[in-house]
């Protein structure tokens, strides 16, 4: 089963990270990532750039409204994720606990849906699989081009 570890940090964590040499943070995170790779559990993972570079598309308005910067009044910013393939919920929790993060940071752990979670004959599920396939085919074509 696959889980997503969603990293959120608040101002306290961001301020604290300014105090620690960047090299040290990179090394600790690098070792953590390497242990995930060596254990054969890491499927994907990315860090996100500064939230102020981002923007939000809000569907409350019609047409949707685009605003600069992070989402709403949030105190915790989403700034990275891992996708792990593990044997159990407990294993996902154990890996999450080992992440080198400090006060003010949180990992939200969510299970990723698999196709078995849905009835195979649902027409919308089939359509979504069709879209995924189409997207994958387009990506393949682009790779070859």
């Amino acid at each position, binding site marked *: 089963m696959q889980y997503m570890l969603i990293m959120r940090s608040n101002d306290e964590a961001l301020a604290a990270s300014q105090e620690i040499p960047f090299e040290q943070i990179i090394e600790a995170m690098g070792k953590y990532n390497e242990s995930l790779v*060596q254990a*054969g559990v890491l499927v994907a993972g990315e860090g996100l750039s500064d939230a102020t570079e981002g923007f939000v598309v809000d569907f409350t308005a019609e047409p949707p409204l685009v605003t600069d910067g992070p989402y709403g009044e949030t105190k915790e910013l989403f700034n990275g994720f891992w996708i792990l393939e593990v044997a159990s919920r407990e294993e996902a*929790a154990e890996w999450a606990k080992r992440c080198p993060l400090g006060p003010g940071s949180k990992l939200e752990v969510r299970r990723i849906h698999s196709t078995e979670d849905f009835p195979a004959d649902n027409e919308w599920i089939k359509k979504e699989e069709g879209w*995924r*396939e189409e997207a*994958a085919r387009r990506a393949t074509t682009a790779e070859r081009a």
Partner: protein
Amino acid sequence: MTEGTAGRGQDATRRAVAAVWRIDAARVVATLARYTGDFGLAEDLAQEALAQALERWPDQGIPRNPAAWLTHVAKRRAADHWRRQDRQAAGTAALAHDLELNRFEENQPPWDPDEISDDVLRLLFTACHPVLSEPARVALTLRVVAGLGTEELARLFLVPVSTVQQRIVRAKQTLAEAGVPFETPPRAERGRRLASVLGVIYLIFTEGHTATAGTDWMRPELSREAIRLGRQLVALQPDEPETHGLLALMELTAARFPARVDATGAPILLADQDRRRWDRGAIRRGRASLQRAQDCGRGLGPYALQAAIAECHAIAPDVAHTDWRRIVTAYEALELIAPSPVITLNRAVAVAEASGPQEALAIVDGLAGHGPAGHGPAGRKGGLATSYLLPSVRGELLARLGRTDEARAEFIEAARRAHNARERDVLLAKAARGGSPDRGAQ
């Protein structure tokens, strides 16, 4: 607190301990094996430490660094063991010294992946040592490298717990009697030993999706364990093309799992699978692994070639739009490096799609001893001699060529040879239909 909630709390701790063990077993056992120089003893000590954890952690909580705790406890047990053995030799003195220096620290830093990876690699090579039988290699690898418990192994292989326990005990005895050292194999043996590791992982994978025992057609948990081991091996041996080839083959094969059985659990042939249900993420990862195998620049081995064939299927929208010529080429290469009648038969099936049934029939007749190429010794048929596959494929080709009576005879022969009732029914139905063509029966 009622008994019920206490039970639940205990159960939660047990599951958490099992999770810790899944993560740390390989590193704990590997560290202990290097430390004691004795694989069997290391495994025993690790199990004792785990038992102690199951006793203590429900009350004390799980330590901040569980692996360090387990290793520390196991090393103490090693000291006790040596004392009991009255071996006051250098080993004991060194150990006592080490325990003195490395007093257990709750806040010890976690494993350094650079330091531990060589030990885990040695562990994998030892568990897959050719001196062991295949079932022993499989059991030992899942136990010490993947950190599966005896009960879990028994459940996955549908055998009693006592059978698994005996298998592990005997395997450790065999290693001890053969004097297998805990080391990375010397250069001269390296290729053969790596082949054994790859073979064990692939065996675990295929056991998961062809299920030779029991009623379920697939046990995807076993296949997932194999993929996880494959990913571990890739991290440990990134310069070996076949480690990437094997991982690619497993990812690309597993990508089809969601489409491989129908609602009643019956298998669906590749040609009839709903390809929209294939796992696109697994296909992407498998293709990336295959690319890495190619990037090693030493040609493709048997696993990578099979992965290349699986890739042709994975990226094709249907049977008609599959690159059968590339598949034929891959089978030709496979026949050169790992010749077998089954590979030749598979090539014939691909040739039928790429160039038509007439050319394919000539290959199959060569195997079956019907045509001019069939004057070789009967042994050439190898594993195919008694299998239903040969007459089944021959019947299919004859049917496509409109040679209905001959096709029917082949299907009846195939049905006679089939072990599985479901297969037999399908073949008899084909015979009854007068051998009307069916496609892509692989």
